[in-house]
């Protein structure tokens, strides 16, 4: 079980959190202008990387804030956590 450092609350057990899939996927501002393929790209396509992955996490049983995490999926090491809206750290 991970130890996750919530950017608002500090270090907590993984059981307080919920994973929310790939990070940095922005909802299109004008969905109606998009073709089916472009919309499908936003809607369905997600990376599944063995290695460094950018993810969304939610401190659901804590402050309920969403934040981003950089995690190495090959060994589950958490490389960084940062708030929504902040730039991802350079590798």
């Amino acid at each position, binding site marked *: 079980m991970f130890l996750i450092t919530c950017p608002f609350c500090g270090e907590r057990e993984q059981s307080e959190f919920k994973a929310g899939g790939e990070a940095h996927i922005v909802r299109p501002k004008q969905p109606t202008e998009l073709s089916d393929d472009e919309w499908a790209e936003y809607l369905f396509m997600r990376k599944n990387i063995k290695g460094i992955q950018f993810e969304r996490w939610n401190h659901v049983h804590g402050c309920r804030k969403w934040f981003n995490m950089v995690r190495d999926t090959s060994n*589950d090491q958490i490389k960084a956590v940062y708030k929504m809206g902040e730039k991802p750290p350079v590798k």
Partner: protein
Amino acid sequence: MSNNLRFKTSKFIDETYRVSFKFNNKTYFGFKGDTLASALLANGIHLVGRSFKYHRPRGIMTTGSEEPNAIIQLHDNSSRTEPNVRATEVEIYEGLVASSQNCWPNVNFDIGGINNLLSPILPAGFYYKTFMWPASFWEKYEYFIRKSAGLGKSPKVADPDIYEHKYIHCDVLVIGAGISGIMAAKMAAKNGFKTLLVDEKSYLGGSSIYDNSEFSKINNQITSSWLEKEINEISKIENLEIKTRTSVAAFHGYNFLLARENLTDHLPINQRENKVRQRLLKIRAKKVITATGSIERPLIFDNNDRPGIMLSSAIKKYIDLYGVACGENNILFTNNDTAYETAMSLIQRGIKINAIIDIREQIDSKISYEVEKNNIKIYKGYSVVDTYGYRRINKISIMKLSKDGQTVIGDKIKLNCDCLGISGGWTPAVHLFTQSGGKLKFREEDQVFIPNVYPSDQISIGSCNGDFGLDEIIKNTLSSIKKFLDIDNSEYKAVETISGLNQSKRNIWLLPSDKSIGKTKSFVDYQNDATAKDIKLALREGFRSIEHVKRYTTTGMGTDQGKLGNMHALGIISETAGTKMGEHGTTTFRPPYTPLTFGTIVGRNVGEFFDIFRRTPIHDWHVANNAEFENVGQWKRAWYYPKDNENMHQAVQRESKAARDSAGILDASTLGKIDIQGTDSSEFLNRVYTNAWSKLAVGKCRYGLMLNEDGMVYDDGVTTRLGENHYIMTTTTGGAANVLGKLEDYLQTEWPELDVYLSSVTDHYATISVCGPNSKKIVSKVIPDLDLSDEKFPHMSFKNAKIDNIKCRVMRISFTGEHSYEINIQANFGKSVWEKCMEAGKDFNITPYGTETMHLLRAEKGFIIVGQDTDATLTPIDLQMDWIVSKKKYDFIGKRSLYRSDTIREDRKQLVGLLTENPEEVLEEGAQIVADIKKSPIEMLGHVTSSYYSPNLKKSIALGVVKGGKNMLGQKLIIPMENKNINVTVADPVFLDKEGERLNAKL
């Protein structure tokens, strides 16, 4: 008790404390300090079980958790009965009852033993190959196969014991209290680290604590004496916690470990009352030191599984720790020096050693010379080729090994024995290390896997790290712990060691036989009866991956996870396939290291705490009024209120009729309620619902439908505008938490610029819905000050009101199609307001109704229930709810998906009403809908989602989804059931009062 098997010399056995116990219905005696295994051996009993597949007689092989054979049923038929317990781990107590497993009628005469004679036709994969045809017969075979395959029996009644969970946080966790674990714990604790030391045994010191040999000394003292002083010293260190009888089950990432602490299993039953039996420790350690030691390897040769064949180190421990001789005429069979330590222990007690068979040609160590001096015959370069004796070994035959070790040569020599100790060297116990994600490397010299890459802040020390010599263990423990903890003071000044052992060994994974391999039974996995022959067969049949060979032969898949034989399986595979060891990897070691009881896993989460439930503030009234309950999410909701022995159907018919004829009352407190405030609240609702919200006037209510981005219906409910910037949203009961989460997600991540605040207030309010033609009269009695005239309080509006000076919100909304009011009041007044409504409704036959009637009433009106009529594959258009999808709004969640090529298909499943030809026939929910039953295969057009008998319409009604159903109005379809076909007609989903006259009727 055979006195000549017991030696009154061990300080671990209290000979003044005699303990009686029962094994296979016979009473025996042992002493306090015995395990069931040592007590049985002291009584001359080796045969304790039958093997899994061939029902071969099996005896005790080891002294610990690695035991593959001596697995027994504890407590026989009592509520505490427990299967598959290792006799080597059970500490005996007065009144213990145990019995053998997998045998009938008894362990000495077992009918299943016939499988052993049939074994030539029962090779690996036998069941897979044989019971394949015809496929439909599997169910018949399965019954007999399951019956004859055998582990123990599960308990049939509730476990009377108490279990619990506990979190522990520490700086340093040391697993294993052998010599290196003790040293590491002392170094850590004395240097200020908050330290926890755990060991699965009841005593500290591991195998060194009974090492009284003159051949391995520390600072000129015999090892056990030196270690005793160390243990005495660490027991006084304040920041060191020591837990014995505590077995680490799992080592997860981020140094999170699970351990089982055994608290009462060693006590007589009458002393266990009200005590916690086992505790699951959830340990989070900053640093972990693994000192789990090593497990002796058996040797693999023909018939190496007879009772009386044991690990050499086990024979030593039974003598030195338990004071029990395992046999009176022993032979040791080895490939390394440790068997000579066993020999010395036997010699010291004057127990006969008939011979030592050593597969090495050259043996050069002090201890071996000492053994030879005692006139023990050592057969160098020999191997055991067969063993004899059915219920106990009585003879072996040996032959000379060829130089390359591939064959046996010369004459066969037969030797008598009643106990054969075998030693194939040692395997580091790396199970926990690999569970944590650690990577192993293979060390060629002595053919062992040792830790290589650590995934977290941890270290392995002692023999689990591949250090086997005493000098090596001490030297490396000191230096690696100093480095690991970054400390200068090791607490140990120069420690001098002497060891009479040499680390040389000759490794042959599968010893050669004079027979062909097909005629041998050389067991690799004792518990699952997997032999070397089976592994070779698997390779011949094309299996290459170790994981596949494991599953095909079931090697390592027993409750012992193949702690003894896995290495040999790998060795035989690599030798047969001509690959290098380590190339195939190892199989995965999965938690738990030793089996856990279910009690430990669930802890206190049993009974009513198993799955906690939520009650509404009116719950007690429902209970007092005979309600049956339904689980909705975590809620207990009143389902129906049977009167005078009514069944559910009768109760629901009565309730449904009353609600439409006069008045009904429903506890709707479980509906999710989200309080929405902020200047952008209207804009926010515009974005999350399909319909428009900006123009909703303060004091008005509106039904909303929420989609996922994929356009599928997600939730629905009525939202009320309480003020300019204040709304209250209701959600489905089951969806409440998820809807809040989804709204928060959008607010925080996509639309942080919106000024909107959300709070869940589901539990803050009780919601009482009063409906029916007399609802107005009832509510006017409960809230006389409130003007209920249609002009002042029309349908879909809300008013603040007071009941006995308590503020409440009243909404005129309806889920039944009747004129109805929803009173929302602070939760703790819910029950009294409900009772007031009941009192006020007395003259109008006000009838409490549950969820079932609610479902029926709304189905009459064709209102959907999200999650019952929808299943995340239906758009609002599919539900024929086009009216709620705003054409004008630029965007809302899911809008773009409503005109994807897939969602605009005409032949999607669409919601329709269904009427049966026979109005008395009620369809089954979930039943398939078809058009043509002659076609093969029959094309499934959809299924029934809701179905009831409507007492108000006096006919059966149903909702369902049907491909292209929208354009099939009036069309005949068929519901094929097991023994009949039901004819139905596609109808409008609104069955009652399509014009909504009942809602607006002048009352």
